[in-house]
């Protein structure tokens, strides 16, 4: 039996308006090299000047993971040649990162929590992009991304399965979204993940040789990449081979990891403090102001929702993971006054739709207020579960407000006893055979048989009949 040992390096693009060391815009998707200034191009003579916003963002993250904040952090140069690295070095932080040791809690499948320590988080600049496919036998360079601020978050190797790794990544994602320091969009590369994976015999204290899977770009692929790498390592060891420390890439089409083309020689990055930048000294007042501006974080919001809305730990965990979803839910719960029903609707319908369509809550076409109205109409018995679902579908296709949909589609639940009685009479009249069978049946069989009559009533009433009332009237009539 093997135990896997996993650590993640998560690169988060900070959502500043301008780059970390220049005034260029950081927005995604502009035409190549239109967002690259003289500084991003590494022109002779230019100098970097730090964007103070990144310090605030990094410190907030540090405080959110209860980390030691580096009051004096230092920018270093990591030297290597690559065409998308204009200066021939990346400005990063080596020995004195802005965020030191911290931790987060992840919830395991059995509902227990596990603490995962975070070694450090440091600031650095992103590189540009090499475009290998657009030009015949040539490589194009797009430096729009060069100089985008990154926070690299390094976990301790304390994750023991691909599922734990994903749970950790989701917690990090949740925190950066709550702090509003990144859009966390993995598909666009705003959050990228390198997975360090090794295995060892269960119970062993010695770490096995690790491999690093670079740049995995979705939660699902993180899980699959790690699992396929664990399996590959187990197979190798079982075959009597050794694991080579190397960098690998995950191929989602084949669901396997492959070694990256090996560089001719090991890189010596020749790190040294960047003489163009002074050490970053953070005052206690600055750190305090960052602390004071921290929003409520997922952990505490979860506890608050359980208490305030009477929902389960599981439901609360699902609902608070995304701050916008959590806000959306809270608005529904507050307006409708029914936390449990709100949770059911958000999880069962809203989140289901988001999962299916891949859109985010901000792109979801139905306002929280509308879902709240829907729930209010369920509670006042205007709608039953069936008609409520119809209204929800209508809301999704933009047919107007809850009440106008109910009115236009004539979905008001029929609670008029007279009307219901006459429908029941029709059903009894049209099904004499079933009525006879019912009346002679043993009482324990009758319950099931009643369903047939209810179904017929609902059919005639187009689903609008109040099911409880129909039941009662049927019981009365059939027993007579």
């Amino acid at each position: 039996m093997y135990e896997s040992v996993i650590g993640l390096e998560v690169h988060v693009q900070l959502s500043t308006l301008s780059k970390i060391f220049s005034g260029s815009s950081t927005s995604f998707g502009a035409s190549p090299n239109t967002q690259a200034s003289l500084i991003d191009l590494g022109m002779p003579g230019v100098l970097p000047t730090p964007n103070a916003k990144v310090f605030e963002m990094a410190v907030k993250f540090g405080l959110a993971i209860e980390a030691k904040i580096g009051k004096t952090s230092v920018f270093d140069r990591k030297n290597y040649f690559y065409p998308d690295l204009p200066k021939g070095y990346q400005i990063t932080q080596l020995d004195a990162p802005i965020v030191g040791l911290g931790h987060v809690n992840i919830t395991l499948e059995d509902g227990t929590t596990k603490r995962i320590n975070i070694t450090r988080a440091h600031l650095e600049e992103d590189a540009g992009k090499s475009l290998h496919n657009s030009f015949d036998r040539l490589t194009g360079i797009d430096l729009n991304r060069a100089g985008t601020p990154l926070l690299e978050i390094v976990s301790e190797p304390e994750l023991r399965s691909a599922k734990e790794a994903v749970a950790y990544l989701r917690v990090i994602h949740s925190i950066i979204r709550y702090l509003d320091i990144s859009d966390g969009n993995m598909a666009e590369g705003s959050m990228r993940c390198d997975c360090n994976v090794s295995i060892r015999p269960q119970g062993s204290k010695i770490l096995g040789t690790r491999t690093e899977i670079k740049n995995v770009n979705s939660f699902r692929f993180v899980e699959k990449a790690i699992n396929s790498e664990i399996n590959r390592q187990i197979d190798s060891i079982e075959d009597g081979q050794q694991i080579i420390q190397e960098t690998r890439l995950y191929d989602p089409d084949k669901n396997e990891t492959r070694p990256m083309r090996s560089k001719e020689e090991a890189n010596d990055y020749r790190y040294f403090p960047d003489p163009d930048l002074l050490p970053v000294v953070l005052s206690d007042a600055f750190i305090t102001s960052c602390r004071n501006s921290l929003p409520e974080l997922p952990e505490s919001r979860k506890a608050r929702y359980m208490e305030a809305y009477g929902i389960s730990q599981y439901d609360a965990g699902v609902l608070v993971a995304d701050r916008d979803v959590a806000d959306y839910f809270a608005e529904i719960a507050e307006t409708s006054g029914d936390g449990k029903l709100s949770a059911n609707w958000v999880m069962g319908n809203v989140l289901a739709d988001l999962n299916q369509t891949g859109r985010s809550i901000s792109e979801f076409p139905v306002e929280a207020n509308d879902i709240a109205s829907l729930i209010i109409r369920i509670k006042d018995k205007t709608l039953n579960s069936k008609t409520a679902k119809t209204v929800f579908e209508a809301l999704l296709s933009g047919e107007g407000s809850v009440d106008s949909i109910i009115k236009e589609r004539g979905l008001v639940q029929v609670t008029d006893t007279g009307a219901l009685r006459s429908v029941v009479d029709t059903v009894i009249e049209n099904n004499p055979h079933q009525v006879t069978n019912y009346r002679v049946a043993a009482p324990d069989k009758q319950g099931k048989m009643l369903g047939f009559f209810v179904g017929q009533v609902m059919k005639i009433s187009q689903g609008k009949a109040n099911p409880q009332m129909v039941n009662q009237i049927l019981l009365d009539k059939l027993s007579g």
Partner: protein
Amino acid sequence: MSSLTKNTLAGLREILTRGDASSVEITQDYLAEISARRDLNTFITVTQDDALVSAKVADQIRAAGQASLTTGLPIAHKDLFCTKGILTSCGSKMLSNFISPYDAEVVSKCKNAGFVMLGKLNMDEFAMGSSNETSYFGPVKNPWSPTHVPGGSSGGSAAAVAARLTPLATATDTGGSIRQPAAFTGTSGLKPTYGRVSRFGMIAFASSLDQGGLIAQTAEDLAIGMQIISGHDNKDSTSALIEVPNYESLLNDSIRGLTIGLPEEFFDSRLDTRMQSQIEEVIRIFTSLGANTVSVSLTHVAEAIPAYYVIAPAEASSNLSRFDGVRFGYRAEKPIDLTDLYECSRGEGFGSEVKRRILIGTYALSEGYFDAYYKKAQQIRRLIKQDFDRAFSLCDLLLSPTTPSTAFALGEKSDDPVAMYLEDIYTIATNLAGLPGGSFQAGLIDGLPAGYQLTGPAFSEAKILNAAHKVQQVTDWHTHYPEEIRNV
């Protein structure tokens, strides 16, 4: 030589103010002189047309009564200050095709102050050298003797001022590159405190040591120029947020009671005896002006050169990585692949001294050597700073020779890098400590100029210029210029 170009910057300012000559006339005279003295190889680019246009504009501004103190005065820039639309070569084949898309902060400050740029000045390649022999554009000749070097790396700046081809030149100093050529050419040069002048747009050699400054005929001219180029720049994180004093108004302060420290390490047996007697003459003048002298010690100064030749190449090896043939500058033809593109572009684009320093610096930063070299050098740097702090608790300024001897012959040291590195023995510690230092004329030895150096605490430029100005008021060393020029 025309009567206009023999003037100091202050003299030209008076001429312009009085209306005795226009900026166009002055500019034309300088352009003619530059053209006549191409043999000195001081200019890489002469911006003749632009200069005449700027001069004309300056004259119009003056006619409109809008002239500032410096409107219409000529200047030339060392060719590592980026100048928009104009070749900025850094003395290298690597940038021999580089037309800068922007102006360095120093350049735009000069433009805004109304200075007329005459052109771009020759220099050692990437400011690496002490003789101006490493320039891709050929060596600069010393106007005092065409067989001698003008010093480096700001050899073009110093020689141009000495030959009266410009009254003021920008320059840079990483280990002595302003002061040593100023001394070799009989000019005045000031390397300001690290952070006093913006480094934005100044192509980096060693970022923690580089500092832009000026070379001119007199301390007074340096004061006029310093007023323009000094000050905080938010485009340079290392630039100092400290108020700029009015340098010119402080020039005439009395130096009675000024205490001048004489570092004993700089007056040892290595010092040429005739140089020593020139310096003693300078000391005598200071004493006659009411200054006192005191002997001080800079204990770790012997370690300055080794420390410098770790730190400066280390930073340079990284700073020069951007010259890779990808986005600008020299690019090798028909590379086989990416590695070949790098190797050939850099191999062909850089000269041997630059390559030597990149290799030294790469080695010093390598894994396993970093602590032994780079960290150790930084420790020495701190000790040297402390030495200066201690010295300045005993005196106001330090005085020493700028160089151990006068200008050496072209080719004399070009094959011996260590002998060349020792040229900066008196100047280099100042850069490691980030302090201001000036070199001023101290007479002639065998027809070649000698210079004395004043070093002060951080941001004491005004005090240095004040002291040097007082000496220039009672001496005529700064008025000497090469016999050859006098005869033209």
